[in-house]
């Protein structure tokens, strides 16, 4: 039986993991490669590297980091951040990424998803959507959640999937950082609308939040989180054991 996936997300700037990481046993807690290896050993099913670098020098360091990670970590790796053209797909795929997630790039250039899907296959094109409630409607936000595009989110995600995106990362701005659980209502709306894998993001505060996620939204395929893993509040091995005990299929 296909298992539910647990995915840690690493924000990388100028080749370093940002957001404080709290693992005293790692020699260099800000090394994306070391952290990726640690998570892989601990049972992570997949990794997301999010490049928040602004400079081109930083971009070059980021691709070197990707290559180094591919030499040491043998689980799927999704790369996002600053993907605005097909050449960005080529740049990260040639360095070991398996999937590429687009967010603002797909809003600014609707042709990007179909072009990339045609060249590299839908299986490596991920639509990542930052979504927030505005006057009772789900809106897509651009530029890291700063700009309200006014676009209705569920129909927009469906259009992206129809255009060739093979997976959806749904990040709820409403629940992100609050640590009170995933956005069940928003996830249900998206899972009902598409027939490709959906990854839940935003709101995980404890193990119970993952149990509730997979119980209440059976259509969700994966749970993604950052700080609760980085700060050691939740160990992935403990989380997966608990999910297994709750009869939620996971890879142990």
């Amino acid at each position: 039986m296909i298992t539910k996936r647990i995915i840690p997300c690493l924000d990388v700037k100028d080749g370093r993991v940002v957001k404080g990481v709290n693992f005293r046993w790692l020699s260099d807690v800000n090394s994306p490669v070391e952290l990726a290896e640690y998570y892989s050993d601990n049972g992570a099913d997949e990794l997301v590297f999010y490049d928040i670098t602004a400079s081109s020098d930083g971009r070059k360091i980021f691709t070197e980091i990707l290559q180094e990670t591919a030499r040491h970590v043998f689980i799927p790796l999704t790369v996002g951040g600053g993907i605005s053209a097909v050449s960005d797909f080529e740049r990260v795929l040639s360095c070991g990424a398996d999937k590429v997630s687009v967010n603002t790039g797909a809003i600014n250039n609707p042709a990007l998803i179909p072009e990339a899907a045609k060249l590299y296959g839908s299986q490596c094109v991920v639509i990542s959507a930052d979504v927030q409630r505005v006057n009772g409607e789900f809106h897509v936000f651009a530029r890291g959640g700063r700009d309200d595009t006014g676009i209705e989110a569920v129909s927009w995600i469906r259009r992206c999937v129809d255009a060739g995106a093979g997976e959806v990362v749904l990040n709820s701005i409403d629940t992100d950082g609050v640590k009170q659980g995933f956005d069940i209502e928003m996830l249900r709306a998206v899972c009902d609308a598409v027939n490709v894998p959906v990854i839940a993001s935003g709101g995980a505060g404890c193990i119970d939040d993952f149990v509730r996620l997979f119980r209440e939204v059976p259509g969700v395929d994966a749970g993604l989180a950052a700080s609760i893993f980085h700060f050691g509040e939740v160990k992935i091995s403990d989380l997966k054991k608990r999910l297994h005990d709750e009869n939620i299929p996971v890879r142990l």
Partner: protein
Amino acid sequence: MFTTAIINYGVGNLFSLECSFNAIGHEVTITSNPDDLKNSERIILPGVGAFGDAAEKLFSSGLADVLISEAQRGKPILGICLGMQLLFTRSYEFGEYEGLNLIPGEVKPIRDVIPGSLKIPQMGWNSLTFMNPSAIYSRTQRDSYVYFVHSYAAFCNERYITATTDYGVPLTASVQRENVYGVQYHPEKSGNVGLDILRSFCEVKS
């Protein structure tokens, strides 16, 4: 003479695959040169994307003929993902295309056989159920998890199937016909389980 040749025929990225062989201490040569294939001890046929396009590249480059003759000489060959599908007689992905016919069988959409509630592609970790024994699983425990990404699957005589995976129905996860091996999943993305499978394949002798 070198050990392992990975066929580069312009389909998909080979960096991760190369890294996975290096991690188990095997030098690999990524090549589109027929002589390299002839001089290697074993051949990896990778591939992502659509069957028709990949088959066209393989046949028009002449690499298909070399691969077939090397297979007939008894050289171990491993097809991965689309590379496994190419080992079969034909595929019905976006039309009808001829494959290498090293293993009799057909590649068809999983949509036709799985329950309608399941997603396409099958993307994620699923477990292996062993069928006929295979040397590539010499280190692998039953029910081990490997990473799949596919919308099409191979349908063939049971005697070639070495493992299945349960996606509502049993789907072909790996096959073997004598020295020709194929895996639908990605061993290079399946953690230590995947590396062990590659390690065992590298021990197969002609």
